[in-house]
């Protein structure tokens, strides 16, 4: 049989299936629901994320302006005045917001401590989204497979029940051709439902998303829906009746989409308990007490620092130093504290990472988990990207605090500084000019580089490919049994 003949047969079978759907009110309803959900989710999420991004950008520029507009002050005051960073969502988060709502979106940067990000949106939510949000990612990952099942459970069993299967065989239509034709029919439905997401993806390109992750993102969803079309086809081909096909597919959906992702989450949190920040703060406080309180230059912990400095400048008292010893202590202790803080912060992040890795391993069992991971990684809305934000925020915090500490050490004399509460006049003298507040870099949190996003998603994509291979294997096996 020439490939052209087979091609036309496949297409004829697919068209026949589509004709059947057009006459079936169930199929029409399902397609309509799927399309409405897909379009609505793309629209709603796009609007919500755009508004959020604008709000956060606005607050970010406000925060910077307010900081830079502060009057002449003692530099240490500005360390406590602090600065705010707002996390702005990456372009592809309009299609998969990922963990955005579950993480704080504002972080307060100040001296001596690392604050956690505050005001997670989920805390302000109606609580109605405990099962899932109307986002394109959720609609594609969980709801679309269900609708594909309702649409396609009978693609093979219907022919079998109606007795047309034998008829087709006699006519010389090989089982594989038949399956291929039905696959094309299902894929057509899948593509139709995917269309709004593709449009949304094209829009993100206009909003500054890089090409590679967007293409990989769309491709991952294509692959994912192909897997489900394959599952529907395989089960329908193997099942003896419409009824068993439907029940079997429902069972697969419940297991893959509802149960396994949550089992993965439970397993991760039970297998690896993470200490909260509050708990590690005890250790941080202890260690800070050991390394000395930077507010108190007379703390015995700073004796070695003092002796070294006096020796270095060959003087006998701190008053004679060319730098303000209080500022030096402040800078020194900040860097000591930060080492401790970072050690614990890093530990916490690594445990969270390990938890997420446990959950993601379940992606070998369920393509839903694989697509969730791939999707969030490509969109830059997963745990790694959030942690990247936290690390970046910490780097900014440290830089901005230390530049103020340097100002404290070099812009004020020790005498001015030590006597600042002596009188109004002394207080005024113990300040530096507000021109020094222009230390904040224009903060734009840049997500990972496009190639990095893609590289991070490779494992999940591999999981999807494996699932696809297994499904194809099943289909070939089923084809032989027809």
């Amino acid at each position, binding site marked *: 049989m020439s490939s052209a003949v087979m091609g036309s047969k496949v297409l004829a079978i697919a068209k026949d299936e589509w004709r059947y759907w057009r006459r079936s009110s169930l199929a029409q309803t399902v397609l309509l629901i799927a399309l409405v959900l897909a379009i609505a989710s793309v629209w709603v999420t796009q609007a919500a994320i755009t508004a959020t991004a604008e709000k956060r950008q606005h607050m970010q520029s406000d*925060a910077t302006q307010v900081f830079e507009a502060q009057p002449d002050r003692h530099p240490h005051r500005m360390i406590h005045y602090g600065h705010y960073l707002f996390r702005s969502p990456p372009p592809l988060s309009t299609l998969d917001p990922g*963990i955005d709502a579950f993480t704080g979106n504002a972080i307060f940067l100040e001296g001596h401590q690392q604050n956690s990000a505050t005001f997670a949106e989920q805390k302000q939510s*109606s609580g*109605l*989204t405990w099962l899932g949000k109307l986002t394109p990612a959720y609609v594609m990952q969980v709801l679309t497979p269900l609708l594909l099942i309702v649409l396609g459970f009978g693609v093979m069993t219907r022919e079998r029940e109606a007795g047309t299967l034998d008829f087709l065989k006699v006519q010389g239509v090989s089982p594989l051709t038949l399956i291929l034709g039905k696959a094309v029919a299902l894929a057509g439905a899948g593509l139709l439902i995917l269309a709004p997401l593709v449009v949304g993806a094209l829009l993100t390109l206009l909003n500054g998303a890089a090409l590679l992750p967007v293409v990989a993102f769309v491709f991952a969803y294509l692959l994912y829906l192909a897997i489900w079309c394959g599952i529907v086809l395989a089960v329908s081909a193997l099942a003896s009746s419409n009824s068993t096909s439907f029940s079997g597919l429902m069972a697969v959906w419940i297991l893959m989409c509802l149960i396994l*992702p949550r089992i993965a989450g439970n397993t991760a949190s039970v297998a690896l308990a993470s200490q909260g920040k*509050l708990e590690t703060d005890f250790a941080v406080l202890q260690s800070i007490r050991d390394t000395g309180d930077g507010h108190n230059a007379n703390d015995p912990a700073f004796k070695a620092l003092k002796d070294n400095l006096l020796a270095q400048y060959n003087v006998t008292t701190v008053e004679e130093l060319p730098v303000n010893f209080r500022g030096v202590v402040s800078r020194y202790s900040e860097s000591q504290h930060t080492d401790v803080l970072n050690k614990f912060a890093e530990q916490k992040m690594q445990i969270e990472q390990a938890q997420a890795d446990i959950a993601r391993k379940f992606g070998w069992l369920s393509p839903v988990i694989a697509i969730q991971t791939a999707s969030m990684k490509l969109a830059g809305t997963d745990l790694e990207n959030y942690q990247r934000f936290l690390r970046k925020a910490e780097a900014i915090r440290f830089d901005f605090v230390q530049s103020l500490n340097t100002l404290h050490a070099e812009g004020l004399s020790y005498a001015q500084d030590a006597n600042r509460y002596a009188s109004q006049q002394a207080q005024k003298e113990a300040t530096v000019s507000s021109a020094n507040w222009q230390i904040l870099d224009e903060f734009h949190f840049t997500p990972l580089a496009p190639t990095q996003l893609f590289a991070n998603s490779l494992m999940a994509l591999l999981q999807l490919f494996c699932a696809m291979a297994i499904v194809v294997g099943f289909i070939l096996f089923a084809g032989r049994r027809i």
Partner: protein
Amino acid sequence: MSWLDICRETRFVLHKKSVALVLLVGFLLALFSVWTGSVEVAQQHATIERMQKADELDQAGVTKRYDEAGLLAYYTFHLTYAPPSSLAFAAAGVRDVYPWKHRIRMLAIEGQIHESDTQNPELAMVGRIDFTFVIAVIAPLLLILLLHDLRASERAAGRLDFLSITARTGYSLWPLRAVVVVLTLWLALVLPFIAGAIFNGVSAGLILSVIFIALVYILLWSLLCYWVARFSFSAPVLASFLIGFWLLTTFIIPAVANVAIDKGFHGPQGGDILMTQREAVNDAWDIPIETTMQAFVVSHPEWADKTQVKSLFEWKWYYAFQQLGDEAAKPLAQAYQQTAEDKYRAAGWVAWLSPATLLQRTLTDWAHTDAKAAWRYEQKVRDFHAQLRHFYYPLLFSDDKYHAEVLDARPVFKP
């Protein structure tokens, strides 16, 4: 209907491989959810215990180190927490989104209360299997699998008429078969719960209430399935109706309503609260001390004649402007909280259209793991912080000399 009928139908139903499999899956899921839920609750208790010990040591260290009320108030943290209730293992609720532990000190509360030391956000997003999820979401699906083809399968096998004719009474066949299936499913789901509830020390009344509400919920879905199963469509079409109804009430209505609620209720941004509080606190350094003190005595007239300061830095002034910072942010913080409460209340109306959500809200309410419980905890922390101020202000404002014994009267947080 006789005992014989019941035995016969039970045997018949349970001997069907597909039914037995569904029941087994239900049982295993309930078991898994109860087990992991109990482990998690135990972890939370252990965390609280460790933190209590560490907090005591930390406080003792601070108390030894400083001998001035202002410094003590600055450096002493106080542990506050909301322990998981006995029922929390069955309804995890929002304890992974809202904080249930804080360490607070005498500084402005608005700068501290919004910190949230929550667990892994990626796991929180995926959600977890708890008993509530098994009953509210999975049980209806299992029922649909079990009941939708009650008659259709017999019809397809050509036995329907024969069975209907030979049945002793109208009740001894279909209703009986359905009741047997439903009750065994209910038992398979609640038995692990009962074991877990006894292990976790849930009161008998609460256990009965939970298994009763689970029964009512399962019966409602069963009635729907039973009613739909009467129509003479093919089994998959009947199941599609039921799944469609489940999808609509469980996912689509809540998700769409959430969008509408987000659009309909607007409150201040969280960031604004922090900014307002910070500005108020920091401005105090740049304005005359008397201005701050005058504003302070508006809310604390009892200290009106103790506001004079001798130097440019005094702790009473420092804490006075912390208080003023809170007062400045109060309207915003209240509006922020009000918005959250309004949204939650509006969602309560939506829940009447979504049985699964209604059940989830009820069980998390009983387990004190819902947003309302989180707000109650937040209020407790605020009250405790107010008590701390009430304790420290006399030490800061009056001229009495500080001595360590006064700390015996310092408030301790009780959950």
